[in-house]
């Protein structure tokens, strides 16, 4: 579904990703872990099409298409969803009108009729239950005045509404209590199907107790330095990143 080859990314001349490779197939869940500032959010942003970053080298193909040539909104309509690490507040724009616009633009892209108001309301109620979000949140402006946890839940709510093919969740688990964490995990697991894939960016293996990943990767110095299965996450939890860093440095020295 997603194939990233030899990707190098920089911002203001500072290289962040350097020779990054990743293959994600339909039906898979990948977890990407790594210390702060190693470029996890950068990777997510580049996949979503943020133009602030310069792609210096490499390619990304998504379902056979050259992703780097697509506008961010086209990527979204083609099924890429990014759960932001820091969801932005948009004052005055209600959640409902925001999501309805998004859904109908996607439907138009796919050649479908726009969703009627009634249908949309029904859909919204259904998804609200799924992520157990307060019904009042959807009447408020996008993320405005939401608590940290509410913002993260709101990302999952939007994911549930938009039903993406490839979801990338950037630290959607940080700052969540255990109940909220379960809600997030539940949302992701509901979406899980042989046609869809998920990339989970996280610091903690906690979330991975609820969403069992097929692969765990460690991002360090701009590239994946170690990959494994769920047990790698547990190992990182007990040993910390130092161990992987050392290994990576040793490998680089050879």
């Amino acid at each position: 579904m997603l194939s990233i080859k030899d990707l190098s990314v920089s911002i203001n001349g500072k290289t962040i990703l350097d020779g990054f490779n990743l293959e994600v197939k339909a039906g898979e869940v990948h977890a990407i872990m790594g210390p702060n500032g190693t470029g996890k959010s950068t990777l997510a942003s580049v996949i979503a099409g943020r133009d602030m970053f310069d792609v210096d080298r490499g390619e990304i193909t998504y379902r056979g298409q050259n992703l780097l040539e697509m506008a961010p909104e086209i990527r979204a309509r083609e099924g890429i969803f990014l759960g932001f690490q820091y969801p932005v507040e948009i004052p005055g724009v209600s959640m409902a009108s925001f999501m309805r616009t998004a859904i109908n633009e996607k439907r138009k892209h796919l050649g479908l009729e726009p969703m009627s108001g009634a249908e949309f309301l029904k859909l919204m109620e259904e998804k609200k239950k799924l992520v157990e979000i307060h019904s009042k949140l959807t009447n408020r402006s996008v993320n405005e005045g939401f608590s940290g946890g509410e913002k993260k839940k709101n990302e999952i709510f939007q994911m549930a509404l938009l039903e993406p093919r490839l979801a990338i969740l950037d630290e959607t688990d940080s700052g969540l209590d255990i109940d909220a964490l379960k809600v997030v995990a539940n949302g992701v697991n509901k979406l899980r199907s042989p046609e869809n894939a998920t990339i989970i960016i996280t610091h903690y293996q906690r979330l991975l107790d609820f969403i069992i990943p097929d692969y765990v990767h460690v991002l360090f110095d701009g590239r994946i330095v170690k990959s494994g299965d769920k047990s790698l996450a547990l190992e990182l939890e007990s040993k910390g990143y130092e161990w992987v860093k050392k290994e990576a440095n040793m490998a680089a020295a050879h």
Partner: protein
Amino acid sequence: MEDKNNDILEEVTGSEYKYGFYTDVEMEQAPKGLTEDTIRFISAKKNEPEFMLNIRLKAFRHWQTLKEPRWAHVQYPPIDYQDIIYYSAPLKKPKLESLNEVDPELLETFEKLGIPLEEQKMLAGVAVDAVMDSVSVATTFRSTLAEKGVIFCSFSEAVQEYPELIKKYMGTVVPYTDNFFAALNTAVFSDGSFVFIPKGVKCPLELSTYFRINAANTGQFERTLIVAEEGSYVSYMEGCTAPIRDENQLHAAIVEIIAHKDAEVKYSTVQNWWPGDKEGKGGVYNFVTKRGICEGENSKISWTQVETGSAITWKYPSLILRGDNSTGEFYSVAVTNNHQQADTGTKMIHLGKNTRSTIISKGISAGFSNNSYRGLVKTTRKAENARNFSQCDSLLLGDKCGAHTFPYIEVGNRSSIVEHEATTSKISEDQLFYCLQRGIDMESAIGLIVNGYAKEVLSKLPMEFAVEAQKLLSISLEGSVG
């Protein structure tokens, strides 16, 4: 509300000015140019009583001594006041009892404009006094209003039927000596609306008027007078759309509002005159004098305006807070795109004790436009405990436009508190990207964010206006991306 938002966004797809057409109703016009004869012609056409002609002539003589003001932050070529037709009227202008009697071509125009003059409007409970060019051609719901003693009629009619009220109030808030354009309007005004709400009456309907400029070279000089007697309430709506014209058209209106003790007047405007084309050719020059006076204790007047049109806007709906404990409000959204220039704001003059005023202004500039907020807050020595809060924000779309803020604050006693805040910034990249990532295209994303940004003001509009206003915001920013 939510659905409304979305309908709006879906409709915003065309790119040219939607309301660019004009009707071909036979006109009766004054000859070009402005002399005492023109004024006598206008007055005679309208069969006016002597006193009205005298006011016009006085204003005209005063106007001749004045120079056009040029202090606003706008630029435009000199206006040739002798090259303007100061009077034109649809030929058939009988008093109409129902819409069936209205010229079908005219109705068609209104329908194209999306103005639900017919059933929708009635169902919505709105009486409509539609002004085609300068003369009122249709009035509905007269009787409902009459039952309550509310007078809502064209200004010309009021001059004939309620001369005492006109004599008493006309020019008391905006005297012809006020400024160049006020003098001009007083001399040549063609028509407009008159509203009188008697003591203790809450006007049962939202009153609305639609204005159109419709003849080449015809200046439009509207005159509105609203009087709210003690303890009364009225909400008045004014909306404008104008057809495409190559030559610039001058619009110099006057609005006067008087609120007596405990009265409240809410005046809302959606202004969408033809702004000129993408190169800045054509468009309406909108030089308007709007002023209200909170004459009595505890009275309240609020201005809400959504300004998207006109090549040039020069407009400062102002309030004089004379009555103790009176309240003034000004809520404004002004959008400029392409080569539009807007210099708009308000004046709050606090004279009475414990007077309060609030100013919320949201400016949005795009293209090559310039958008200025200009406002005065003044508290005199007697205005003990006066309070003002002003918030003036500017949003910039693109690096070829300008956003300017020119507040003037004069405080003349120690118990007043005046606070002014202003910010200017560009539209947030983070917000835009968030929308894009959800699959919303750039134009819609801007529309959404801008509507959200202006929400505080839009929410002050009557419901049926809010929809139109939101549409206008999105439409007028089309093509501003890139």
